């Protein structure tokens, strides 16, 4: 299934990244760690937005790719700027992005459940049709 492709590549990226960080002992300074987390959340938001757009049939690769890069950088940059001017913009980014992630997830779930229900009703009508033909033949 196509969904497994997404899960698999995410897990693969995570494994590769974690091994690289562990092996070469790369470390990001303590004060930049929150920005990295906000950037990761922005990336998560873009990916779910992309899946939703793809399901709704209005996926555009340029918008998606630029959104991924820019959202990540912008989220981290805004959080950094917020810390410099004494406003906790990291929290704002977490709330805004988190809300969107949940919204997109619920829409994706609704789409899949709809598809499942449609497939089930189609199967039922097929079964009914089959039964009817069998009944006709036996007659």
């Amino acid at each position, binding site marked *: 299934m196509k969904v497994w*492709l997404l899960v698999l590549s995410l*897990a693969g990226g*995570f494994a590769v990244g974690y091994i690289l960080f562990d092996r070469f002992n790369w470390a990001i300074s303590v*004060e930049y760690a929150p920005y*990295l987390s906000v950037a990761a959340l922005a990336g998560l938001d873009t990916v779910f937005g992309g899946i939703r757009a793809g399901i709704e049939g209005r996926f555009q*690769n340029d918008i*998606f*790719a630029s959104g991924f890069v820019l959202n990540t950088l912008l989220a981290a940059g805004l959080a950094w700027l917020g810390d410099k001017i004494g406003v906790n913009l990291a929290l704002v980014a977490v709330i805004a992005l988190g809300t969107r992630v949940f919204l997109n997830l619920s829409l994706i779930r609704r789409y899949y459940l709809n598809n499942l229900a449609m497939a089930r009703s189609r199967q039922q009508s097929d079964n009914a049709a089959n039964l009817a033909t069998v009944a006709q033949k036996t007659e």
Partner: protein
Amino acid sequence: MSVFSSSINHRSFYWQISMLCFVLGILLAAAWHTTTSISRSGNSNPRLGFFYQSPIDLTAKNEAENKKNRERISELENALAHQGDAEKTLNKSLQDMKDLLAITEVEGNGVVVTLNDSPKQPINPADQINQNHLIHDFDVANVVNELKAAGAEAISINGQRVGFTSAIRCVGPVIHVNGQGVAPPVTIQAIGNPDTIAGGLDMLGGILEKIRRYDPVMARIEKRAKMRLPAFSGSIQFQYAKPIRPKESSQKESTK
């Protein structure tokens, strides 16, 4: 462009999202790894990880030390038995005591930490109030503390050996070590395992990171072989502390 995107749109948006999912995975791994390594080393107690590392090594080391001490005791006892060796043995233990008091010169491998004032003038009000562009007495004291915790056996600051009565304090524009003025650049030499010491100093959330936050130029670490550290020059004399000798106390008890 429009043809390309329209042809690719519906068929393979999963592929494209998957590719960026890979990048996202790396990003998540980076955030995960950083956050866990911070919580592992811990801002409040960065030493904990160091001690967790090798309880077995420490036990083995203690046992070896005990064995050495016991051998030493038997050596002394033997010397007492055969009066001829007594002088030699007493002299050797005296020399050992002098080494432990840091009143002899020592040499060995170790690390040189150089702390210097930053040429950048502070702009931020917090930096201005705290004078973060300067090296302070507590910076030096913190580094010395960290060096001791990382197992440094001998430490000297700009040629002033750190003994057990050494104080590091602020006296106006200079720092006093053993009552002698010391000014930046402060060169702190430490003899010990160079990798352990450098690792302890460079730890996430450690002492040097706090200093380097203002300007990375302010703190430098260099591993060096064969350093020679001077002897402690201050006086060590007890006026108030009265040593308690086990022999005397037992004699007192017996006379009662």
